[in-house]
């Protein structure tokens, strides 16, 4: 970002930007501003301030914490939060462990390709496979429980309010582990071998070496993985749409899916805009945190 490049001033260069600028203005910038704008108005185009936001936050499908702690449905906002609390550490650490193990193992690229497949898989396909995996009678999870002889655990996990959300969260670790793995792999490749030789001479145990040398040096990668993973978890939509439609009831709904329901099922554009703006605010908050860290460096 701080790279200074100098050169030639060539003529009429703004002309070259214009197609990209026109596209972004029309299809990105203007719609975002329009969404923010209508989030402050009622369907009859009266200015209501934060009215839509209060309205949305008071709804059970967005925030339902009465009698907390309890099982889902807890509302989309809490569901997204649970997604971050469970999915982020799981996918991040499994990716980190894999990257460290695979650093100097023969045939590492084969393992990496198999694991990264989850990142390439369309999320719609991921959702279908998750649903299938947890389905009673046909899915692999239940085939596994049957083999173990715990048949009472063999059930359609996505069909019960207590387990639907968690089935999707745990299942989606499979899709995203590849990301943290390749980012950490790239980071590990930048650590000079001498550091480890020095640590060895000093008689440091592998654990000590990892926590004193490797992990601190991977901090930029950790920041990247945490940021991008949180963004992914905030935008979760396809998986929920295809695996459970947010159900049963509201038990596995998330903000992005709820926004879609408000807009395209209820045709309540103002409430939808409030959810969308709120979501954008959350992602910007996370992003700005990352950019500030990058610039400080």
């Amino acid at each position, binding site marked *: 970002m701080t790279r200074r*490049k*100098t*050169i*030639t*001033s*060539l*003529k009429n*260069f703004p002309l*070259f930007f214009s*197609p*990209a600028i026109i*596209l*972004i203005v029309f*299809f*990105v910038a*203007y*719609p*975002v501003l329009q*969404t923010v704008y*209508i989030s402050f108005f009622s369907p009859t185009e009266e200015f209501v301030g934060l009215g839509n936001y209060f309205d949305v936050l008071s709804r059970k499908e967005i925030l339902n914490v009465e009698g907390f702690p309890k099982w889902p449905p807890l509302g989309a906002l809490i569901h997204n939060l649970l997604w971050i609390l469970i999915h982020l550490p799981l996918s991040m650490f499994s990716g980190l462990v*894999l990257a*460290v193990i695979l650093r100097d193992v023969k045939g590492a690229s084969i393992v990496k*390709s*198999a*694991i990264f497949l989850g990142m*390439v*898989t*369309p999320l*719609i*396909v991921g959702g*279908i*496979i998750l649903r*299938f995996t947890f*389905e009673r009678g*046909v899915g*692999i999870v239940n*085939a596994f429980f049957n083999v173990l002889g715990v048949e009472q655990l063999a059930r359609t996990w996505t069909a019960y309010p207590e387990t639907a959300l968690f089935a999707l969260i745990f299942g989606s670790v499979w899709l995203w582990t590849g*990301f943290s793995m390749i*980012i950490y792999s*790239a980071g590990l490749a930048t650590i000079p071998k001498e550091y*480890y030789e020095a640590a060895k001479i000093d008689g440091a145990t592998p654990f000590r070496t990892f926590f004193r040398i490797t992990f601190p040096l991977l901090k930029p*990668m950790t920041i990247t*993985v945490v940021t991008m993973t949180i*963004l992914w978890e*905030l*935008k979760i*939509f396809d998986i929920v*749409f*295809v695996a459970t439609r947010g159900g049963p009831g509201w038990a596995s709904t998330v903000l992005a899916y709820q926004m*879609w329901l408000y*807009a395209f099922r209820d045709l309540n*554009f103002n409430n*939808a*805009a409030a*959810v*969308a*703006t709120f979501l954008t605010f959350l992602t910007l908050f996370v*992003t700005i945190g*990352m950019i500030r860290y*990058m610039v400080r460096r």
Partner: protein
Amino acid sequence: MRFPKLGRVTLYILLIFFIFAFLLPLWTCITTSFKTLKGVIDTTPVEPPLGPLFRLPYPTMEPLITAFNIMKRSLLNSFTFTVAAMILSCLLGSINGYILTKITFKGSNTVFLFFTIGIFIPYQAVLVPLVLTMSKLGLYNHLGGLILTHTAYGIPITTLLFRNFYGLIPNSLIMAAKTDGAGTWTIYRRIVLPLSLPPFVVAAVFQFTSIWNDFLFGVVLTRGQNQPASVVLANLKGTTTVMWNLLMGGTLWYALPVLVIYLVLGKYLMRGYMAGAVKG
């Protein structure tokens, strides 16, 4: 890190287990799409579609054929707008990257920020106004609408990729051409573009997969005949019970192009992810 001998054996067993565990979903997808509905219920998804003692009552091509017939139109739609938007977003990203790295001008950082901000905007933030804009342009339920949308949302990442790459092209090369009297466009076409194969491959592979995999824009901007494969697949369920073999057949058809690209050019795809994330 050196592992002791016994540790190494355990390690390899563990890694092979990992490969199996991560490939299992794809495997169950393949086996299921070759089974009859009875086969799906009688066998576990891990088993190949061979009946008890290989008397072969279960294997069938029917789910794959039926799924293809349902999805062929949408697969063609997806292919059309994906390739078009891929090419457009790569070209625009390349031009942006060139201007941003090779020309000094006031506010170039602002322009760059403007181009890349789209990476972080959740698509939900644009959906409703986007549908209205497309209707006004007559592009609602039209592949052109999807092409423009995917091109616009591809610009951030392609600009980033090309900017990183063009930063490595020596400025003296551009200077020399300028002294010879070449203009902005000529320099791009004669010098920059011929050097750009590597970033074009990375950007194209990355764009193809992400546009092909998209569901949200497709479901919001199109209906019926013009829907992309992702949307048709999401609606591909039986009326009362889910026909898992048909659904898995459709899944295979839909995932096929991306799987092929991943097998052939997976290395470049990973590079795209890393460039987008590490240098962001």
